[in-house]
């Protein structure tokens, strides 16, 4: 049964392995995936530890519905204390690892300790072994995976792996699976590296019993139709996520030259259509690929068309790669984006963070805070394609002074570089912003400021806010499954009702992350896509567990509060410039210079922003001044006795 999957505790220092069933009450409280991970992290991570110490638990999981019939049930979640931010470390990826983990008998792995030499973990049909990874250490993301398949003699083995960047403790290294599926953000790959853990290999042929197979099949078909008929997903299935970058750039919502402009000019070569063309030419007409059981298929397959890596096979790019290696660094070349995409996938590094850091270093270079001596002779001008590619390598290899410094992440790098450098760093809680510019959009600004893992778009972004949807439509979405009769505004520049939208989206994303479903299959970019009510049905048909939509909402709230408790324990206070729910000054003081008429000349109004944040705390039941969950909230959610050490 889907609910019979176990949790395994693996100690790499002692080699001790213990497994336990996951009690149904824990499922009812935290579902699985990210939700249960949050519980486990709060219970297994001592306050204030060094993220690179053996005590940091690396938690790997599959969501509650992974491997079942609920459309794109592919997601792996990984949690630990983040070596980048010193706060919540959390990432999520698609691909084929999580379903294989479940077919192999496990839902959650809690990995502690540190091996004295490189190892990998081999999990197959209920058994777990720790094995020597001497021959895998140093290998790229894909080389390591193909090598372990060879060693185990099974081409169907799936891996979660850290690349050379993780081994070198680059603080924003990814965990990866397959060619490009990445658990990016917050440096979970570096935590693997710090444990001498190169890879987790899984293979399983155990049944996941479906509670009501006939109904699950039929409902899944309807679910898929709901998902694939949405216009946004049809476009996604042709152009992939680059289409989002194209749309956003057109009105002026992307960061350019670090934070100086909000629209990339002369961008023809990095428009989505151009990548589509390259994929067509280098791979073929049918070049889109999907993650497990997904019919959206947003991943383009391509070969690098030119340059030193010509002919290399890769997947992507994503809109974040266009941001990282085009707009943020002021470049306009498809080749740079594709080469950067490829290098990051091979090194296993978060290009959002890396591109943003390179852009920051470029602005420092422009301002004279960094000189050509600091860059090791690289002319770090905005728009210098070669410099971008060089810097990617230097950071991942840590082989130059500046590369090594940037590998430490923005806050630590700013401390080392000194002078005014921190003023130009675009981050929240020490994590860099993605490529988007939230100055014209208060809702998205509140989203990145309060996201539990630092500046991030996948925790609470109400992206449909950009569509100017009529108020009744908004109300239909946002007053379900819990009532809401406060203000809502169709204008994305307004501050009205935005706090509620962000709050709503936060519960929505927590629910899908805990179920193990992809966010493109949920109310995020499309207004008609599934949400709470649909999920109660798929949960029931697949697992037999019964929830009301309201109960599911409360679970999401509970899990979000567990993450909040973790961050508060690690020192979050609302206005702390390094650990707070606050934007850097530039958001409040520098108006946008480009974009559509209603976008140009805007910045975030500090007072209105702070009021909106208070409102957001209030919806959560958090103290308006400290941002901490009140006793009443903890009791309401049944987490007033955490850590409870039940698992």
């Amino acid at each position, binding site marked *: 049964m889907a609910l019979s999957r176990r949790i395994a505790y693996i100690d790499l220092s002692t080699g001790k392995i213990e497994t336990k069933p996951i009690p149904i009450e824990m499922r009812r409280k935290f579902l699985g995936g990210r939700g249960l991970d949050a519980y486990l992290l709060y219970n297994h991570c001592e306050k204030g530890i060094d993220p690179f110490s053996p005590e940091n638990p690396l938690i790997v999981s599959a969501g509650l519905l992974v491997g079942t019939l609920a459309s794109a049930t592919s997601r792996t979640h990984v949690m630990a204390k983040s070596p980048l931010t010193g706060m919540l470390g959390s990432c999520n990826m698609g691909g084929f690892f999580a379903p294989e983990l479940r077919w192999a008998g496990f839902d959650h792995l809690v990995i502690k300790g540190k091996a004295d030499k490189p190892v990998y973990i081999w999990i197959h049909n209920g058994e777990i072994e720790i094995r020597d990874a001497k021959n895998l250490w140093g290998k790229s993301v894909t080389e390591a995976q193909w090598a372990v398949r060879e060693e185990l003699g099974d081409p169907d083995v799936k891996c979660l792996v850290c690349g050379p960047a993780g081994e070198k403790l680059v603080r924003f290294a990814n965990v990866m699976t397959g060619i490009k599926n990445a658990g990016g953000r917050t440096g979970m790959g570096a935590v693997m590296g710090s444990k001498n853990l190169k890879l987790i290999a899984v293979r399983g042929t155990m049944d996941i019993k479906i509670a009501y197979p006939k109904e699950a099949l039929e409902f899944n078909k309807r679910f898929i139709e709901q998902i694939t008929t949405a216009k946004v997903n049809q476009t996604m299935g042709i152009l992939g996520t680059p289409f989002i970058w194209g749309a956003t750039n057109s009105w002026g919502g992307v960061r350019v030259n670090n934070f100086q402009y909000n629209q990339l000019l002369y961008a023809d070569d990095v428009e989505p259509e151009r990548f589509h063309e390259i994929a067509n030419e280098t791979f073929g007409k049918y070049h889109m690929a999907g993650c497990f059981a997904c019919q959206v298929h947003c991943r383009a397959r391509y070969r690098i068309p030119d340059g030193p890596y010509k002919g290399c*096979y890769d997947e992507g790019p994503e809109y974040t790669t266009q941001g990282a290696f085009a707009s943020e660094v002021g470049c306009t070349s498809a080749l740079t984006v594709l080469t950067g995409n490829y290098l990051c996938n091979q090194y296993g590094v978060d290009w959002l963070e890396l591109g943003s850091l390179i852009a920051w270093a470029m602005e420092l270079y422009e301002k004279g805070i960094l000189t050509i001596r600091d860059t090791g002779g690289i002319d770090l001008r905005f728009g210098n394609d070669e410099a971008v590619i060089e810097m990617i390598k230097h950071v991942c290899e840590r082989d130059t002074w500046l590369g090594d410094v940037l590998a430490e992440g923005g806050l630590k790098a700013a401390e080392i570089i000194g002078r005014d450098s921190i003023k130009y760093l675009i981050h929240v809680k020490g994590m860099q912003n993605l490529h988007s510019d939230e100055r014209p959009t208060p809702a998205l600004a509140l989203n990145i400021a309060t996201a539990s893992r630092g500046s991030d778009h996948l925790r609470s972004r109400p992206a449909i806010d950009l569509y100017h949807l009529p108020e009744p439509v908004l109300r239909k979405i946002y007053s379900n499954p819990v009532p809401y009769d406060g203000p809502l505004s169709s204008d994305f520049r307004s501050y009205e009702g935005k706090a509620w939208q962000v709050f709503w989206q936060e519960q929505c994303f927590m629910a899908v992350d805990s179920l193990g479903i992809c966010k493109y299959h949920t109310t995020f970019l499309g207004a008609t896509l599934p949400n709470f009510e649909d999920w109660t049905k798929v949960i029931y048909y697949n697992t037999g567990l019964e929830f009301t939509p309201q109960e599911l909402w409360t679970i999401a709230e509970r899990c979000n509060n567990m993450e909040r408790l973790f961050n508060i324990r690690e020192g979050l206070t609302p206005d702390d410039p390094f650990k707070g729910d606050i934007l850097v000054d530039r958001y409040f003081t520098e108006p946008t210079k480009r974009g559509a008429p209603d976008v140009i000349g805007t910045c975030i109004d500090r007072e209105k922003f702070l009021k909106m944040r208070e409102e957001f705390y209030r919806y959560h039941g958090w103290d308006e001044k400290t941002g901490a969950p009140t006793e009443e909230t903890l009791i309401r959610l049944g987490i007033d006795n955490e850590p409870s050490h039940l698992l």
Partner: protein
Amino acid sequence: MHANPKALVINYEKCTGCRLCELVCSVHHHGVSNPAKSRIKVEKWEWEGLYIPMSCKQCIDAPCMNVCPVKAISRDEILSRVVVDHNLCIGCRSCVAVCPFGAMGFDPVEKKVFKCDLCDGDPKCVYFCDEKAVDYVEVSREALLRKREAAEKIAQAHRRAVELMSEI
């Protein structure tokens, strides 16, 4: 005999590699999610983005049928498929070894061979595959030609893979 028998036709170029077909095949037949029990399997060469769904060809002169010592395998001409009679099957697995496509599976728990039964004429893999990388069509001349083309491309891809391997 059925006038226009239909067959599963695979156009691997359209396949996105999602493996939904494996999932629905195992759920439909066994009520469980388990690709090891699916009658269709997507073979992948991930390093070049090549995904090829493989399933039973319902051969006319079927090696599995010919090799079976107790004649448990026969042709059902109505649906143009090859079927296993589990009352006769002795579990010797000769058919598993002899199928040129690896399409005959063996369930070690149930101790039974299994193969694609075209879902009795309503193939679930086709119903769910949005791309129609697996399709259920009448075996007309055109379909046969398409199959030949597809096979030729598979052969080319294999050659490319061999070349790539020898370069390394």
